[in-house]
């Protein structure tokens, strides 16, 4: 796999990466009555999902390219649920049994306020999905809670936890696998809040999921065109 800086490295251990938007209660509260107006018309019922394609995947230490025409990008730690078995129509009770482990992901994007259309240009840039190493499932399975922290140049800039989520990890797996199967190597991200730390070229971004792993990447300016 050739990375955005032109260097060949082995790909991160992922097959497919899916994330959830609006999975934090504060985001729904923040949108409030705007969810009942155009273009949204109603609050979301099913999980709001997006895919991070393979060009976005990088490993710890690899540079995240800041697009030549962007001033900054958003960064944020999220918990990645790594599947070890094929998972179709799981329930909350069975969800944990499909996982091989957990990982930390820095789910980067370009800032975007309107979320009516899929944010492909904002979310699917090369190198916008640094994926950390996978750790084992804790003994309590998905009953645990996780704290996710984001640092820019060593300074704590984001701090959220799974207890703030609309859907727990187990609930999310159940609701998504109802129509979309997961297979070994697939990763489902719990998502980040919408109000994210920003960073720019020259910054170093670290994300961690407490008790799982930590991942650090520099941001570099993409070559001008």
């Amino acid at each position: 796999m050739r990375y955005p800086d032109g260097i060949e490295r082995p790909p991160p251990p992922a097959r497919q990466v899916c994330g959830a938007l609006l999975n934090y209660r504060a985001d729904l509260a923040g949108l409030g009555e705007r969810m009942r107006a155009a273009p949204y018309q109603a609050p979301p019922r099913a999980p709001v999902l997006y895919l991070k394609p393979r060009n976005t995947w990088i490993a710890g230490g690899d540079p995240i390219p800041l697009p030549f025409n962007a001033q900054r990008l958003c960064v944020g730690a999220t918990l990645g649920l790594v599947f070890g078995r094929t998972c179709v129509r799981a329930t909350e009770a069975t969800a944990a049994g499909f996982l091989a482990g957990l990982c930390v992901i820095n789910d980067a994007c370009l800032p975007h306020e309107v979320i009516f259309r899929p944010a492909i240009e904002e979310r699917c840039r090369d190198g916008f999905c640094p994926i950390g190493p996978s750790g084992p499932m804790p003994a309590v399975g998905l009953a645990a809670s996780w704290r996710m922290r984001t640092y820019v140049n060593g300074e704590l800039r984001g701090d959220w936890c799974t207890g703030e989520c609309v859907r727990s990890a187990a609930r999310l797996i159940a609701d998504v696998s109802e129509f979309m199967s997961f297979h070994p190597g697939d990763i489902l991200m719990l998502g980040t809040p919408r109000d994210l730390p920003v960073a720019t070229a020259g910054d170093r971004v670290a994300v961690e999921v407490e008790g799982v792993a930590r991942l650090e990447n520099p941001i570099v300016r993409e070559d001008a065109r």
Partner: protein
Amino acid sequence: MKRGRVAYAGAIHGCEPHERGLRLDDGRVLAETEVVWLTPVELGTVFAVGLNYADHARELASAKPAEPLLFLKGFGAVAGHRATTRRPSGVEFMHYECELAVVIGRTARHVPRDQALPYVGGYSVANDYAIRDYLENYYRPNLRVKNRDGCTLLGPWLVDATDVADPQNLALRTAVNGKITQRGNTRDMIFGVAELIEYLSSFMTLAPGDVILTGTPQGVVNVNAGDEVVTEIDGIGRLVNTLVDDAAFGLAPAR
């Protein structure tokens, strides 16, 4: 050249068309119903374009977009020729979409449209079902509508790009149980193949095996369990799919 991938007699084979159906790479000639058809390429990232025909955009009451409306698909959504696709019970409006599928042949980044077509490896036919009952207005079209297991069909053949003189002049049509319900021509795309490659490669790297489903013209109608849906593009292929209900799919009716 047209190439396919099938499973037969316990193994996966490459194949090509034959007057009696298909010819495996080992020389055996088979009817197309004797094999299980896989997607004609191993999939990379799968993109789809919404509202990319002016008539279909009107049909769905949307204004002509300023830039392509793009969304992504996961691997589980995509199945091959002659697949059966589940139509969940209780759904009111599930429709097919006949689309020209573009398979990227080499890595593309910052490619201008006038140089874009050589980056295409080949073309295929797609049928990209949507279940409109599940439509919501966040990251629309949402994955529950457009990324359902087995609801995007691709095949039967990958046709070499060099064998397609003009990808923007291909007649396409859909027939439901033998009756034609959708007709169009790729000349009516709002964003043509070259423009889509220019746009995508302007902000991300396209790699061999990436697939772009280029949208569908007007004429999408509801289809029901038991229907045979055939999406066809002249010179590219004829893709057959059958819808089944939960019981025929092998599931109890939804709770």
